[in-house]
């Protein structure tokens, strides 16, 4: 029997997929777009995501362990849904490869500034490839290990108690905010990753805890984000925060132990793991879609092809601004998918139910 994902692993997998390098710039993005005390705005995004997850969990209950592909194909002939699959495949693949590129470009601000970024990307992609071909169960095991490697860094925030001043938070709320709509999309992308649970339906243990686990994963992401952002708002003055490219990296650079200082490079390398899981999960999702299009193809070769194509695509944007713009655009589409796909599934599932059992009241939650 194939091993199934335990809710605990799902929570961690969701957390690891959601959080990535975004956290390094998130406080600044909040300051830019949400203004004074922008960290509070994170709560709103958390609630929206939680609602979206509830929507997905509704679909999950009705789906009863079927994969989203099965549900869709129940309604349409396969040939008709292939464009949708190709769309999803491309989207997920692109998000995977561009976020990898983003990590590397930021990494190069600090280390190996003159090495060609694509060389480093080979390394990251190789790691990702090796994980992907092992299947989702092993990915989640790796995610759990990486999780423990990274999560302790939150404790480093204690270091800033000394210089943290409540007075720096000011008594203004959301003043000097700008481009709230664009900003909201940018901030929302920081939470993306939870929607991939849609693909995990057939792999999860059939227990009630699955969706709760997704909520917990999301809550964990939210708590990490809000803690880091709160500390940034209290540690820096507002105008300073607005001008810092990567406030969290500066936070880390400020840490000094009697035996070591300038640990930001070490910690940033650790964040490779959270980014890696994000990359892996998106590419794995792309692979799932690809397998649906070509069910008979060899999985390893398919994965290799996806990674190779992703690699080639990521040659195109070369500087951070371009990469950010791409990722922004892709993120917006993905937000659409995160809401649209479960809605579509719900619609199909309800229709299907009506067709199969025509006399039951469908408004009753099952």
């Amino acid at each position: 029997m194939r091993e199934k994902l335990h809710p605990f692993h799902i929570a961690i997998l969701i957390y690891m997929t959601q959080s990535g390098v975004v956290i390094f710039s998130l406080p600044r993005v909040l300051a830019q777009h949400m203004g004074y005390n922008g960290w509070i705005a994170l709560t709103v995004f958390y609630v929206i995501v939680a609602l979206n997850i509830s929507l997905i969990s509704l679909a999950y209950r009705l789906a009863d362990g079927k994969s989203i592909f099965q549900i869709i194909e129940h309604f349409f002939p396969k040939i008709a849904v292939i464009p949708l699959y190709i769309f999803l495949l491309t989207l997920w693949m692109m998000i995977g490869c561009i976020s990898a590129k983003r990590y590397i470009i930021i990494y190069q601000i600090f280390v190996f500034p003159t090495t060609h970024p694509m060389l480093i990307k080979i390394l990251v992609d190789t790691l990702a490839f090796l994980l992907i071909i092992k299947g989702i169960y092993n990915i989640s095991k790796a995610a759990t290990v990486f999780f423990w490697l990274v999560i302790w860094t939150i404790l480093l925030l204690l270091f800033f108690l000394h210089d943290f001043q409540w007075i720096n938070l000011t008594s203004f709320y959301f003043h000097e905010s700008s481009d709230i709509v664009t900003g909201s999309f940018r901030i929302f992308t920081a939470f993306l990753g939870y929607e991939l649970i849609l693909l995990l339906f057939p792999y999860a243990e059939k227990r009630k805890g699955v969706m709760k686990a997704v909520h917990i994963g999301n809550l964990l992401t939210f708590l990490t984000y809000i803690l880091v952002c709160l500390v940034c708002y209290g540690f820096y003055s507002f105008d300073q925060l607005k001008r810092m490219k990567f406030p969290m990296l500066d936070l880390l650079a400020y840490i000094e132990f009697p035996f070591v200082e300038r640990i930001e490079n070490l910690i940033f390398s650790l964040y490779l793991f959270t980014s890696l899981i994000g990359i892996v999960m998106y590419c794995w999702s792309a692979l799932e879609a690809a397998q649906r299009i070509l069910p008979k193809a060899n999985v390893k070769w398919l994965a290799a092809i996806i990674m190779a194509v992703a690699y080639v695509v990521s040659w195109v944007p070369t500087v951070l601004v371009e990469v950010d713009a791409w990722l922004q655009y892709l993120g917006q589409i993905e937000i659409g998918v995160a809401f649209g796909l479960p809605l579509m599934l719900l619609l199909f599932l309800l229709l299907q139910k009506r067709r199969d059992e025509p006399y039951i009241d469908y408004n009753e939650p099952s």
Partner: protein
Amino acid sequence: MMLLVMLLLIGCGDQRVLEKLGFTQTTSYDLDPNTEESSDDEKQGQQKLLISVTIPRTRTENSRELITATAYTSKEAKIKLSSQTELTIVSGQLRNTLFGLSLAKQGIWEHIDTLVRDSSISPRVKVTIVNGSAHELLSKDYSQHNRTGKYLDRMLEKEAISQTVPEITLYRFTRDFLDDGIDAVAPIIKQLDEHVSIDGIALFQGDRYVTKVEPDDTLIFAFLRGRFKNGEMSVDMSEVGRINEHIMFSSMISKRKIKIKTTSEGQHYHADISINVRGSVLEYTGKLSLDNVEHQKQIEKLIAEYIKLKTEEMVAMMQKNNVDSIGLGKYVRNKLSYEEWKNLDWRRIYPNIEVTCNVNVRIKDFGKFVNIEQ
């Protein structure tokens, strides 16, 4: 296998060989003295900078390399500096930046900005002002001490622990400079014959040096600036009417609270600074007895009176120079709505606000020896 070898070779792309690197430890910035006193025409244009860096060398304990260049920008200087040494200059180990007084009077933000931008430079790098020429101070070897860069760095760190000067790093300077409710400060040092000594605290308006707190008053400034522990102060009681009496007040723990009251007419602010100090007295010369409870109370009062007098004097001095170095603006800001604060010209209001300091002194102990009164 080939692939593996290739992958591993990627790591050789960006090499940093320790022996070939020159880790700068201290950088000094001055206006170039040759152009400083030139005609007014030139003054309007950009002025040249004199920039020096020290690189510790390992040949002997105190050996170091000092290189100097003049240039219009600090990055240009870096290229010129680099052409004078066989080492690759890197700034990852930079500890201290010294700014000459004449440059500080013109503004140092553009240099700080360059430093903050550079990812290899730690936000903990110190910002220090030199009363005089930073280059001269840095280029001299002080035979009784460590190599100059290290000597300065350690001295400033030690002094910061005893509250004589605030520890001002790039991060703190930038934070206060970019905050509209506080003005930045930095320690100021000067060169003596065989030593370097603390010369007080430089007070900035924006990024320009305006005035300084005298070295004897730095602790009074510490009371105003925030909470601290571990300070030592000599109280000259003649200031509070007792001639020829002195108290050494040590092991101090001080807390500061600021309350702002607005009067009904609006734009009239009253700042209440309450300072709570606890400490011990081990030395006293004068007529009172350290072991008499009544007298102890009296001593507490006298010290409180002294601190109150001194802090209010200092606030008045800062108001006169229009530098809000203790950050009253932050507290006023929190009293106001966003629109009110933005419409308020804090620089204009600040010199005229009323400030009172309330000081409460508690003496924890009077040492471990008692004089029995005969």
